[in-house]
Each structure stands twice: as structure tokens, then as C-alpha cells.
């Protein structure tokens, strides 16, 4: 029982971070129809930006986060403006290749400045553990869950209630019609990339804190693919369900079966889902009126 609880909390924390990472991916796909293979690197860059601010520049925590958000927004907007906008209307395969190139570029830049060794960063989230029903639960995982829940709720409210959020969904639905409403599609694209970079930054900071600030963050980011295929490429609720499912599945497999199998299992799910339900659990199907 205590192992089960333990694995569950670890799995949920991993899953919550995955949901944040996948949210950025879904935002970009929904608004701009670009499949962003550099999402994992956005996490990596986010984690290192925070590290730079918090450890290298020794800014206070709040300022370090603000610094990270500003840089992430900037990177998101620049990537859209300089790399993706010239590609508008090009073949989707070319666009995918460009994002793969971007991922290699971002990873190399991080290696160039910080090397490949893990960086030591003092714990940001409270450490220690609590005892629940005989299981030792680390407090920082609970904080990860809480923070991810708050951020995901904030994003959901933004999409449901705010003028810009609704405009983003409108652009995702029908670009030309959105243009006739005076919605600037370019600005919405830039906003999607910026928000994706910010959600990746938060995921990156959390990952860096509970694991380590190193290159593995990008590998963890690769897990967004099983998550979004499971949840649906264009579904925000899907990222949460998909993220938690993959996170739990990984931890349970690792704890009860074999840690090696745990790295493979998300991709087994990916293949199975593609076979059975290619648009995912919550993926939007075309509305056909009869």
C-alpha cells in the first residue's frame, strides 16, 4: 500500500509537469497547425534560463521567475517571427523539419554555454516529507501538483473567459473568419508561441527542481508526444488526462515491473492509440451537420 501511494504521488507529479509541457505543444498546434518538435528543448531552455537567473545572477526567487517568463516570451515570439512565419503556407513536412532543426539548435546552444554536466541548483520547493498511511511522501511533489493545477486552471480560464483567449480559439477554428473580425492572426500566432514557451518554462523549472538541471530535461520533454497523441493533438483537457495517465503508467511500470520497461511503455501507448483512436481521447473531430 505504501509503495502504491508513493508511486502514485510520483506519477501524478511527473504527469502534471507533462501536462504543462503538452499544453504548450497543443497551443501551438491548435492555433498555428505547426507540430513543434522543439517543445522538449523549450523545457530545457526554460530550466536553464531560470538557473541562470537564480544561481548565476543570484536574483531572488520571484525575480528569477519573472526573468524566466520574460526571456521565454521573447524566445517564443522570436521563434515565431524569424523561423515559423517565413514558413507559412509551406509543406507541413518542411515545417516539421524546421522545428527539428530548431530543437537541435536550442540543445546545442545550451550545451555551448553550460556544458553537459548537471548544474547544481538549490532546492526551490520545500523539501522534506510527510507520512500518509505509512507511505513517505516527498513534499516537493505535492507542491509540483499544486503549482501545475494552478497554472493549468489559469490557462483554462484564459481560454474560456478572456477576449484574447477566445480570439485564439477562433483563429484555431477558422482563420479567415477570424480576420474578418479584426483579429490579427499574426499576433495570435506570436501569442501562442509565447504562451507555449512560458508553460514550458514552468514545466522546466519544476523538473529542474525535483530532478536535476541537465540535458535529460529535453528527453523528458519528448514524452509530450505520447501525451498529446493520447489526449488529442488539439485538446487542452486532453493534455491533463494524457499527462497524468502517462506519468502514472511510467511510475507504476517502473515500481512494479521494470524501470527499463518504464521508458518504453509511453511509446507503446503511443503506437496503440494511433492504431485504435488516431485523434486521441479528446481530439476534435470535424463537426458534420446532417
Amino acid at each position, binding site marked *: 500500500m505504501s509503495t502504491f501511494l508513493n508511486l502514485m504521488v510520483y506519477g501524478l507529479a511527473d504527469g502534471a509537469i507533462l501536462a504543462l509541457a503538452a499544453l504548450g505543444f497543443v497551443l501551438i498546434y491548435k492555433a498555428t497547425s505547426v507540430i513543434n518538435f522543439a517543445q522538449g528543448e523549450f523545457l530545457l531552455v526554460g530550466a536553464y534560463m531560470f538557473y541562470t537567473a537564480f544561481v548565476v545572477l543570484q536574483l531572488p526567487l520571484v525575480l528569477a521567475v519573472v526573468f524566466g517568463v520574460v526571456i521565454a516570451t521573447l524566445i517564443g515570439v522570436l521563434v515565431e517571427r524569424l523561423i515559423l512565419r517565413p514558413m507559412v503556407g509551406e509543406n507541413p513536412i518542411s515545417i516539421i523539419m524546421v522545428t527539428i532543426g530548431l530543437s537541435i539548435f536550442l540543445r546545442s546552444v545550451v550545451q555551448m554555454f553550460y556544458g553537459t554536466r548537471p548544474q547544481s541548483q538549490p532546492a526551490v520547493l520545500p523539501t522534506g516529507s510527510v507520512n500518509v498511511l505509512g507511505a513517505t511522501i516527498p513534499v516537493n511533489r505535492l507542491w509540483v501538483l499544486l503549482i501545475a493545477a494552478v497554472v493549468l486552471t489559469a490557462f483554462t480560464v484564459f481560454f474560456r473567459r478572456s*477576449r484574447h483567449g*477566445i*480570439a485564439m*480559439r*477562433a483563429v*484555431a*477554428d*477558422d*482563420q*479567415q*473568419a*477570424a*480576420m*474578418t*473580425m*479584426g*483579429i*490579427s492572426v499574426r499576433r495570435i500566432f506570436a501569442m501562442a508561441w509565447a504562451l507555449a514557451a512560458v508553460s514550458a518554462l514552468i514545466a522546466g523549472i519544476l523538473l529542474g527542481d525535483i530532478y536535476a538541471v541537465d540535458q535529460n530535461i529535453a528527453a523528458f520533454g519528448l514524452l509530450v508526444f505520447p501525451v498529446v497523441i493520447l489526449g488529442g493533438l488539439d485538446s487542452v483537457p486532453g493534455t491533463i488526462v494524457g499527462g497524468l495517465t502517462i506519468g502514472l503508467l511510467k511510475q507504476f511500470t517502473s515500481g512494479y515491473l521494470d524501470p527499463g520497461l518504464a521508458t518504453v511503455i509511453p511509446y507503446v501507448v503511443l503506437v496503440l492509440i494511433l492504431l485504435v483512436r488516431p485523434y486521441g481521447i479528446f481530439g*476534435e473531430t470535424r*463537426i458534420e*451537420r446532417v
Partner: protein
Amino acid sequence: MSTTPVTGTSGAAATAAPGGSLLTLNNVEVIYDDVILVLRGLSLAVPEGKIVALLGSNGAGKSTTLKAVSGLLPSEHGEVTDGSVVFDGQDITRMDAAERVKQGMSLCMEGRHVFEHLSVAENLVAGAYTQKDSGEDLDVVYEFFPKLADMRNRVAGYLSGGEQQMLAIGRALMAKPKLLMLDEPSLGLAPLLVQEIFGYIKRLNTERGLTVLVIEQNARRALEVADHGYIMEQGRIVLEGPAAEMRENPDVKEFYLGLGEEGGRKSYRDVKHYKRRKRWL
């Protein structure tokens, strides 16, 4: 002013009262993909507070005209290569589409184009994107289209065609336009619904003084509500005049209203036959 075939390129601009027109197109030429010439020197004027109908057969360039006015051409690899579009005294030929909406024009695209996955209320909020505060306008639109108020939380994609058309018009109104442009509002609707939609268009014009430019295949219905009519063929205006006179014009009757000289309804086959033989240009 009598109904006259227009042969010169600037006919419409010359006949329209200079101060009173909200929208003027002067010799507009539009080319798609650098090679396909769609509008060849089109001129027309929409006087403030009037309903203007733009008629013509498929492929005449009606939709392209509205896209040139609303700035949607660049998204379809089209371009205004000559002439000018003047709205509210301002040259907007090269203005960005979003900026034009802020200047006070709204377009209801052909085929309605509601945001299918958004609710009715969210569609309307999206329509008010250029407005700072849209709460009051929302009530005004709901008051005008009571049906929409009842369905505010429903997903737009599942509404019927007539309801979607109302939503599309309501959404366009949320931007508080001075000029409302409608591209085939009757497309795919049952005759009774077409009547209802045109009733709304007429009311918007009389009750709120909204200027309307409407494209229609349904020439009869359009000329009933319009003050002024233009007929397009192959990228040009070939005939124009007050709607009442257009309705009586024998050529219009024959080609667009499907009526013979004696006023009886002609069979579609005969009309088609004539159409091939006789053109204005």
C-alpha cells in the same frame, strides 16, 4: 438616374454622389497568383445609409470584390494591382484586414463561417474583438436576434443553417460596423428562411441606419430590399441603377429574374440558352 449599361471604366464613381458615399471602388483591378485577372477595373459606390446589391453569375468576381474591400486578398495570394478602395473618406487599398474592421466595416463571409467549436456567446465575443467593452452590444444583438439569446451556450457547429446565418450576422454586428457586407446570405437556406434573413437585413438598415452591401445569387430577393443594384460580369460592372428600375429592366428580368418580356416565368433552359447568346459586353 436611369438604368444604363456601363461601358466606361469609371462609370459608377462618376454617377455616385461624391460626398454621400461611404465606400467607393475606383477602377479596381485584382490579380490572383500574379496571373489570374479577376477584377478588371471595377468601380462602384455604396452611399451612406443605403442597401446596395451586387449581382452576377458564378465567377463574375463578386466575392473577390468583397475580399478586396475587406483586405482578405493577401491570405489567398490575391492582390489589388490597380485602382483604389476608399472607405469613409480614407484610402484603404493597402490597409491590413484587422485595421479595416477597426475603421468600421464587417464582412459576413460566404458559407457563414461561424466558429464551429465555440459557443454562440463565444462567437459573439470573438466578433467584438476590436471593441474594448462588448457587454452592452451583446445584449443589443440578443435583443435583435432573440433566437440567439435562447441558444447562447450551444456549440455553433451544431446550429441549423438559418441559425448559423443569424449568428454570422450578429457576430459581424458586434464589431459595431458602419458598413455591413454580406456574401450570399441566402446560400443553402430554405425560401422561408431567406425571407427572414432579408427581413433582418432590411430592419438593420431602416432601424439603425446601417449601410449594407450585399452579394446575391437570389437577384429577385436582393432587388426587393436594395436601394441600388449593380450587375457584374467577368470582373466588371455591366449594369447599374436604382433597384426599382433594375427590377423593371427587361434584360435583368430575362437573365436574373427568369421572367420573359410578357412577364411570365420562363423555363430555365430557355434562359440559359439566351445567356450564352447575348451578353452586354
